[in-house]
């Protein structure tokens, strides 16, 4: 130590394990966007952000009694381990649910998962090596992108329009991947009431998509959380109903019963199913027996078809409020999708407006949404915002969109003053 210097100090990094993390953890850092979403949880904010179902519409007292009886009568089973594939009785009921979308499946073909998110993780775990190509829609579900990113997939987006995934764009994406000497591991698609785009794959395109994938030897992962929440007519026929060998189907009770029970499932061709079971076993040993039996009892003893119908009516009313407010309030340069089911409207902002850059102002104005950048693996999509109408009531939705409209107008003035913002 020299006389002029302070005592020599050693660097402190707070985290003593810096340098030891896996490469896939590099992007796991604090983010401004997540910080802003922390504010969105406050009741003063009209949140059109998180895709949470309106579980308050459930008969909670009845569900409470049902759970009490479950523990009283079957507690030793509900509080015990079970198999990695999941409770057999629940898997039977899951087959009944899928029959509504014309899927004929045997309970042995079903693997119960921790929400469909775990099914996404397991699919990525058994298929993706670092750098492998996965095809997804543009935009695509943020949770799926996160799962694929954690296995270091190379995600390639395929264009959609108001009728869902564009077959020609899919063919082109496969062709380019092949031309680059690579092979896509699977196509991930949300065909019904897409998250975030709100669109539905047209009936006329479904066979075509399956045919393209079949010819290319490309597995399809059909993620269908919202299929029973259509506002018009009967549920769409599932892709899996037409190609049991080429499609892995993912379902969940998060939107039709309760997100908090974390029960989803996968139905897969035999070889894949066996690997999913082994992967699930290594990940969680087995899923919660309590959650599984809760869902099984709910399906066995409660009028769940009627409850789903109630949910549909509730969400239809909120969808209508959203579309009405958008039509009456936001600047004419905005465009948006008109979902026939599900939770989401995909809003295109005026040219030169970036939804991610706009979010702090929106939060200050007490309205929240999800910037479009979260739904693209490369962080593009800044011109879009996802609006979720499932949670706020129609009056709150109207107020939220009134606030959002004012924020967009301010951004337009800034754009005019400073020039357009970047798209990502």
């Amino acid at each position, binding site marked *: 130590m020299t*006389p*002029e*210097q*302070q*005592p*020599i*100090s*050693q*660097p*402190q*990094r*707070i*985290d003593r*394990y*810096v340098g030891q993390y896996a490469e896939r953890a590099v992007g796991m*850092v*604090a*983010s*401004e966007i*997540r*910080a*802003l979403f*922390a*504010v969105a949880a*406050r*009741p*003063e*904010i009209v949140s059109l952000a998180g895709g949470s179902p309106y579980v308050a519409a459930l008969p909670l007292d009845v569900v409470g009694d049902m759970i009490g009886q479950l523990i009283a009568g079957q507690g030793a089973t509900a509080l015990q381990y079970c198999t990695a594939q999941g409770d057999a009785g629940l898997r039977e009921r899951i087959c009944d649910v899928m029959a509504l979308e014309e899927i004929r499946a045997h309970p042995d073909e079903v693997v119960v998962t921790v929400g469909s998110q775990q099914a996404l993780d397991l699919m990525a775990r058994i298929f993706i090596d670092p750098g492998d190509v996965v095809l997804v829609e543009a935009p695509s579900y943020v949770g799926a992108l996160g799962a694929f990113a954690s296995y270091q997939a190379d995600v390639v987006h395929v264009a959609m329009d108001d009728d869902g995934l564009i077959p020609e764009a899919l063919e082109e994406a496969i062709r380019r991947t092949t031309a680059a000497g690579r092979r896509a591991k699977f196509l991930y698609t949300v065909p019904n009431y897409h998250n975030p785009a709100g669109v539905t794959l047209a009936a006329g395109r479904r066979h075509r998509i399956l045919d393209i994938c079949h010819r290319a030897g490309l597995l399809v992962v059909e993620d269908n959380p919202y299929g029973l929440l259509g506002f018009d007519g009967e549920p769409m026929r599932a892709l899996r109903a037409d190609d049991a060998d080429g499609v892995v189907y993912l379902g969940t009770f998060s939107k039709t019963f309760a997100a908090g029970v974390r029960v989803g499932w996968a139905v897969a061709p035999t070889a894949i199913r066996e690997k999913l079971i082994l992967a699930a076993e290594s990940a969680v040993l087995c899923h919660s027996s309590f959650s599984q039996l809760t869902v099984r009892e709910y399906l066995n003893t409660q009028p769940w078809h009627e409850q789903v119908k109630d949910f549909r009516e509730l969400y239809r009313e909120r969808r209508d409020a959203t579309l009405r407010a958008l039509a009456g309030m936001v600047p004419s340069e905005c465009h948006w999708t008109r979902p026939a089911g599900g939770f989401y409207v995909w809003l295109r902002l005026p040219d030169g407006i970036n939804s991610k*850059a*706009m*979010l*702090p*102002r929106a*939060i*200050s104005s*007490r309205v929240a949404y999800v910037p479009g950048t979260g739904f693209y693996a490369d962080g593009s999509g800044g011109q879009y915002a996802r609006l979720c109408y499932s949670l706020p009531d129609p009056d709150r939705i109207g107020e939220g969109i009134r606030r959002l409209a004012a924020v967009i107008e301010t951004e337009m*003035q*800034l754009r005019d*003053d*400073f*020039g357009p*913002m*970047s798209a990502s």
Partner: protein
Amino acid sequence: MSDLERIVVLAGGLSPEREVSLRSGDRVRDVLAEAGIHAVVADADAALLSMLRADPPSAVFPAIHGVCGEDGAIREVLGLLGVPYVGSVASACQMAFDKPTAKALTTAAGLATPPSVTLPRETFHDLGATAVIDLIVARLGLPLYVKPSRGGSALGAGAVRTAADLPAAVLSCFAYGDTALIERFISGTEVAVGVIDLGQGPQALPAVEIVPGEGEYDYAARYTAGKTEFYVPARLPATVADDVARIAIAAHTVLGLRDLSRTDLIVDADGTPWFLEVNVAPGMTETSTLPLALEASGHPFGRTCVRLLEQAAARGA
């Protein structure tokens, strides 16, 4: 044993720093618990006033950052309620939180602070953004640093190396507030100096040198453990260390602050310290600099929080 029967840590709020504040509040509660003091964390929401009225606390530890927490508003309300609290009074917070005001007052007291301009959004609109930006660059030169005039955690803030990047930086800034503080960027060693007053007058804690792993000391670098290296004390010549301590105490005093504050400075290549801003509710998270400095100077974090609360309780409302 202290007479702190009921302690409330205020955390949360509605500013973009809510998440940071919740982490600060939880940490303060936890270190108080380790020091034997039970505290509850409360948000600044519609339930707060009735809660404070129903069961008045011995003292409140405000850990709300940003608007409402640092602009004096919540402390004004605590004063109206007659509830003792740790930290500066509302009027001092108002001056410190508004960065241009704090710069003006510290400049008047003889502290060096980077040349700057403060401009509201309307000025760019009314006079033409391009013309105003050209004028700023011509006058202040490059590089520049743009930040909201009120706010913290580097949200909406960033360095600008070329004139072409300035409009985007100003736009990012305006997402967090309607007034931009644009100052000449001073390259050098970034340090944070805590000031604590435990009854013997304001004392400077050892300067904490901040070395981001890559790029700027932005939000991710501040709140991701491991992304930034801290040196306590900062690797400064003793005379410069004395200078930054003196400046932090001067800023604390000039702005009329009380109990604790944190002053952020840059020491340039010539060893000249430049005052940037002062914080009246410094971060108390695991990656925040004030707790690091306290521990390094023999002031256990939890015990110091207890002493500040005892002081506040004894002082009264």
